[in-house]
């Protein structure tokens, strides 16, 4: 059986969002980076609607 490609044996991980996943990966020695992404307006529908209204101006 063929050996898996190197990138499958040594994954490089980009963690987006919840940082505790990244923390867990790093504690196990994984090669990972964290992207501090959050949903627009923190997921607040009222604020997101207000921001959308301003896009029309």
């Amino acid at each position, binding site marked *: 059986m063929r050996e898996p490609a190197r990138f499958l044996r040594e994954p490089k991980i980009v963690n987006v969002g919840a940082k505790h996943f990244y923390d867990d990966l790093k504690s196990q020695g994984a090669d990972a980076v964290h992207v501090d992404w*959050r949903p*627009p*307006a923190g997921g*607040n529908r009222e*604020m997101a609607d*207000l*921001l959308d*209204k*301003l896009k029309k*101006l």
Partner: protein
Amino acid sequence: MGKIEEANEKALKSIIEAKPMVIGIKKAKDVIPGMKEHMLLHAGPPITWERMCDPQRGAVMGASVFEGWADTPEEAAKMAERGEIEFAPCHDHDSVGPMAGITSPSMSVYVVKNEVHGNMTYCNLNEGLGKVLRYGAYSKEVLDRLRWMESEMAPLLTEAFKRSGPIDLVGIMAKALHMGDELHCKNTAATFIFLKTMSPHMVETGFDGKIVSRVMEFMGRNELTFLQLSMAASKAMLDAGHGIDYSTVVTTMTRNGTDFGIRVSGLPGQWFTAPAPKPKTLFFPGFKEGDEGGDIGDSAIMETMGLGNFACICAPAVVQVVGGTVKDAENFTREMREITIARHKAFTIPYMNFEGTSLGIDIRKVVETGIEPSINTGVTHKKAGIGGVGFGLVRAPMDCFKKALKAFVEKYG
């Protein structure tokens, strides 16, 4: 280009082109618009005596005794309770004041003029660190120092300014950013440049050598001497961009220990407030967690201008003071780029290949990203009479920006 983008461009152009110059020193009652007898200006958004935090009350009491309105601080407190003292934000009177920010009619203030747009700003003189009026202390030692500043320091500087002529504040601030200052908690280089500039003129006044020596020693020992000028200059620049219809640029961030308040260029006359948070503090020896008061001071004008914490990579020593690392300083600086929409041209960051400092906090970006502006700050004791307890980091409350966004859509949407 949309109406908001066009308005923001106009506001930022004015802010960047502004040229604040310090032109002299005058008594507050002679120059600050609307200043009158039995009136005290304060840091932060509007507040009543009943809601004032203890340190700001302490400063009110001290200033009232300084003015001769009361013989004791306790008598001053009773005057305030009876409504015999009128309070107003410094910001509503073209002024700024660090920490409690109490500015009284007889206090001397720096007079700053924006030579491009003509607007003026004012700020009182810095007393130093520790047990001082602006941190809520009001002992005899505090009042004696204020009286000395009025009897020797202000008259000497007044005469010195007549000889020096107007002094370019942007020039000093730009140099200081290259010399390890962030211009909020660290004004060391700016203070020394200012003292270097003024000292020949101070000597030339012909005042007694001992007076000149005392004043120069006081200003040199106090590495926050230039903070008042950093603040007045920043207000002069930001005010030039205030009142532009459709602009979402934040032109004021300030706090009074009880409330945190912001103002937005396209929403003149309105304050948007939320409870003032407590700073994450590195305490001076002898103080501990639980001693700190609420976030206080007009000095958040520095971060509004894209300096202070927004440029803290220029002054890694400041982050060290509050327990961070150089990498933290860079992270703060880069993070604040996410909520701003321009770069200054005169203020540049050596560590980041001389890129301009961030400018133009946009209420839309703050709400959209969830990133609250980060502020370096001095910290008062929660009780009046004690003074400063350390330095800290604090975030501007998101609620201020959400309220501003709602009001903006109501007006323009």
